[in-house]
């Protein structure tokens, strides 16, 4: 640190000058500005000192001292970045290695400038405490001098960008659900309550509402807000909730390369974070996520956040809470009922809806070819595309009608049967004996005790049911979603391979591969194809 009234660049320059033989300087900022900002810093440091760029995200990148030593450079300026490109597990590993090898830095004579992605700023000092404690200075993200000026673009430019990149389909309103008059009610409420939650009964249409809100806002017809829709389950898996992790989850890669666009939107209050399904998390995780939202709200005071969950879901204190508007339920029922008829003209929509207790969640899960648009936004789809075509493509599949591989008739019957009232009681639990009876009815056969036990085991192994208490289970929606994802992948694979039923032991293997895909492991596509080729369905 030098003169506190000086700019950050001048302070860095002075600190490097003073801290020979070893200067450790940490600079925090938006993750995608790492290179540009480090170049700017390099430019103010002595030109006669050689520069060494070091990437922590490359193989062996954690061996910083080794890299400096091997370079043979005398008294270099070492510009270190790459943490922003690592997943949390790998980042934790790299930070731990840097930390325990801190003392080895005594072996080198250098000025080391570390770029810390600002979303990692809370974690870095506790994951690498010894290294951090040696800092000569930390430049915080508020020192905007470090960040090049062109970072904030306009929302209209973003929308143009989407269209130019062929992502215009994202902006199409998929279903006539939300109209301007309806929007007004929500918009006024969102305007008045920058932090808000919609809490309503299960199956009342919260997810449909959130998707439609997203599309409505993304179409650019209502103000300049840009929505980002994420699932609470996904957010619960990230170590530290911040804008960077949200961005990594959801925003297409092309946009992530766009200079700090998302950050600019958040600063200007033009970003709306929509989080669905908070109630799908266990209570402790709900609490943690609620606190993480509070923190996110503190970090980005102008960003709007809307979360959805069932009544009683824990939301951050002080946030505005309301149920769904009354009109949404009828509108959504009509909409999904129409889709049901499209799929099966003989379907008796009224009786099916009655059997489902008018639960829209169940209705969407019962549809054999559901418009599961949510899947289109999963990260695995990008991986899938990359794996199949060898290149990254925008999510252009949204422009086509969804077509799914039809699961085996048995699996389809079971899924439908599960959804049709057997599984979902008030507590969303099911007694396995009733499931077995439903299956017996469906197949018009007898179900022996042994068969029941076998089936129960298969269901549990297939992760379709989660044991709640002895003999009682909760149907796991996420697993169904995995099944639907697997089905689509199987369809898209060369040859349109069929998928084993969730009751077939082979499903467990498929599920594991799909979950690999969800973790962005593209190699799983090949393994899944090979596996499916040899597995009988049924």
């Amino acid at each position, binding site marked *: *640190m*030098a*003169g*506190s009234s*000086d700019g950050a660049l001048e302070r860095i320059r*002075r*600190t490097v000058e*003073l*801290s*020979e033989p*070893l200067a*450790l300087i940490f600079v*925090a900022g938006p993750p995608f500005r790492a290179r540009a900002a480090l170049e700017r810093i390099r430019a103010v440091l002595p030109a006669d000192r050689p520069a060494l760029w070091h990437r922590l995200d490359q193989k062996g990148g954690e061996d910083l001292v*080794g890299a400096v030593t091997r370079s043979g450079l005398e008294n270099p300026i070492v510009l270190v970045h790459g943490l922003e490109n690592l997943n949390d597990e790998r980042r934790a590993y790299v930070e*731990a*290695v840097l*930390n*325990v*090898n*801190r*003392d*080895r*830095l*005594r*072996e080198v004579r250098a000025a080391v400038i570390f770029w810390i992605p600002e979303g990692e*700023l*809370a974690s*870095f*000092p*506790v*994951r690498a*405490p*010894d290294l*951090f*404690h*040696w*800092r*000569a*200075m*930390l430049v*915080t*993200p*508020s020192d905007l001098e470090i960040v090049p000026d062109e970072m904030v673009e306009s929302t209209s430019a973003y929308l143009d960008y989407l269209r130019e990149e062929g992502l215009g389909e994202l902006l199409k309103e998929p279903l006539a659900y939300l109209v301007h008059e309806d929007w007004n009610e929500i918009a006024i409420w969102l305007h008045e309550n920058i932090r808000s939650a919609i809490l309503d009964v299960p199956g009342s249409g919260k997810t449909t509402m959130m998707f439609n809100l997203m599309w409505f806002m993304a179409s650019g017809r209502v103000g300049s807000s840009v929505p980002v829709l994420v699932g609470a389950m996904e957010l619960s898996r990230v170590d*530290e909730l911040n804008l960077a992790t949200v961005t990594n989850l959801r925003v297409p890669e092309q946009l992530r390369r766009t200079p700090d666009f998302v950050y600019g939107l958040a600063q200007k209050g033009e970003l709306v974070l929509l989080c669905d399904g908070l109630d799908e998390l266990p209570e402790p995780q709900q609490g*943690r996520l609620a*606190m*993480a939202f*509070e*923190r996110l709200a*503190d970090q980005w005071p102008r960003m709007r956040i809307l979360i959805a969950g069932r009544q009683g879901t824990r939301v951050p204190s002080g946030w505005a809470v309301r149920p769904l508007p009354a009109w949404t339920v009828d509108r959504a029922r009509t909409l999904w009922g129409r889709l049901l008829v499209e799929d099966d003209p003989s379907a008796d929509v009224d009786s099916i809806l009655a059997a489902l207790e008018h639960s829209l969640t169940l209705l969407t899960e019962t549809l054999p070819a559901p418009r599961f648009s949510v899947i289109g936004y999963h990260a695995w789809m990008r991986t899938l595309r990359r794996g199949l075509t060898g290149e990254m493509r925008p999510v252009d599949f949204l422009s086509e009608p969804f077509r799914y591989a039809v699961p085996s008739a048995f699996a389809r019957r079971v899924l439908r049967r599960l959804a049709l009232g057997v599984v979902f009681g008030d507590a969303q639990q099911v007694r396995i004996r009733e499931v077995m009876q439903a299956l017996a009815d469906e197949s018009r056969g007898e179900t022996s005790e042994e068969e029941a036990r076998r089936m129960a085991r298969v269901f549990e192994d297939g992760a379709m049911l989660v044991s709640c208490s002895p003999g009682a289970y909760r149907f796991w929606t996420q697993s169904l979603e995995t099944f639907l994802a697997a089905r689509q992948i199987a369809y898209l694979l060369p040859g349109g391979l069929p998928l084993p039923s969730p009751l077939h032991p082979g499903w467990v293997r498929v599920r594991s591969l799909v979950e690999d895909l969800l973790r962005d492991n593209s190699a799983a596509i090949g393994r899944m194809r090979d596996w499916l080729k040899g597995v009988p369905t049924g």
Partner: protein
Amino acid sequence: MALSSETWVKLYKRFDPKLRLAETEEKELYVQRPGATADRILQALPLEEVGKWVVCGSMGSGKSSELVHLANKLWKDHTVIGVDLAASSARVDSLTPPEVLFLLGAAAVVRARRDGHDVSGASLSELSSAFHDLIDPKDRRSQVDVESLIEGVSLFATAMDASAGALAAPAGAFVKALLGGATRHVKEGEPEVEKLVLAVDAVLSDVAARMDPPMLLVDGLDKVTDLATIRALFTTTRLLARPKVPIVYSGPITLMLSTEWHAASAAFKQERLTNVVVARPPKELVDRLELDVAGDKITAGCRAMREVVERRLRYHGVDVDQAFSGDALASIITASGGVLRDLVHLVNRCCALAHAEASKQGGAIVTGQMAADAITEMRKEFEVTLTTNRVDELKHVKQYGEPKGLTEESARLLLSGYVLPYSNGKVWFEPHPVLRGARRDL
């Protein structure tokens, strides 16, 4: 008279938080803190011929300096084996108890060789074979030559090394790449483990037969942050307490928490290197915990911290009054929370500010405003890393004088210096004082 920019450069380097006291400077710069840990161990040593101590304290509280100080007091009567585990292993945070044991034996071999002695071939062969037996044969590391592991052991420098003209050798890259989670999971009492314990003792006996009685000072385990690893080293197994020589380990601060403290006390005598009390605890805490922190204790604490600064200034012929005006130094001492390295950090930043001023004006002194700027800068660094969970934990510590429990967040805040321990008969914890002002509720 204001100090020149050249003098401020020298002072900036003298207060570099990265630098350890060099062995040659230890005598001039070491300041004995009130209730010195090293002295207590020295006094107990004649009664505890094979005693085992763990010195726990905040990051930057001076644990390593305390070990160096101990070494310098002991070397005339003991063969001091000061081993730096962080520099001797690839992942000190993954070291298993058998690996630590092996490194102790290996360090004794290195110490003996440096002093012109050697351990017997039989002892060395036993050590090698016992360690090999604990590595999974399928692990590529099972092929490693133990002799090369021994060569890579890093001893930390002491006055004895300085007098002998020897320097601590840095660990070889090959060796560093291997140690840390190399041994298979073992339980105490397994024959292979007992074999290693005997082998280490045999090496130490060899050293004792040829040289002064050995004393092991082991630095580096305070860098372990994973709770499971800490427990494996200090509470759930007693392997580290088995060698039949006195050993002092630097240990992680989480061992200070009462549950861990009691669990570890079965095998180790624990020395809390608590931070120097430089301010009266909040009244609420004094009342709740019935703390008796007399004014003279605070005065003594501030005096010790001031002496740290004075000695380093004097090393360059500078008096405190020449470097700091008015209450500038006092405010820095209070803001340091009694953590030595944080004091050094704050003075270092003041030196940078004074250097900038001196470069423009031809001379400068640290003013109250500069001290305030340095404190604000450090506060901002803490502030930007605060999260809701951390604030909750810190509020709890502020209110109750102790962490909520050994949760991951509690441990992280202790390990990274957000929460500081103090003692005065009783042990209590407070949020780092620099956080006051970051948020009203802290």
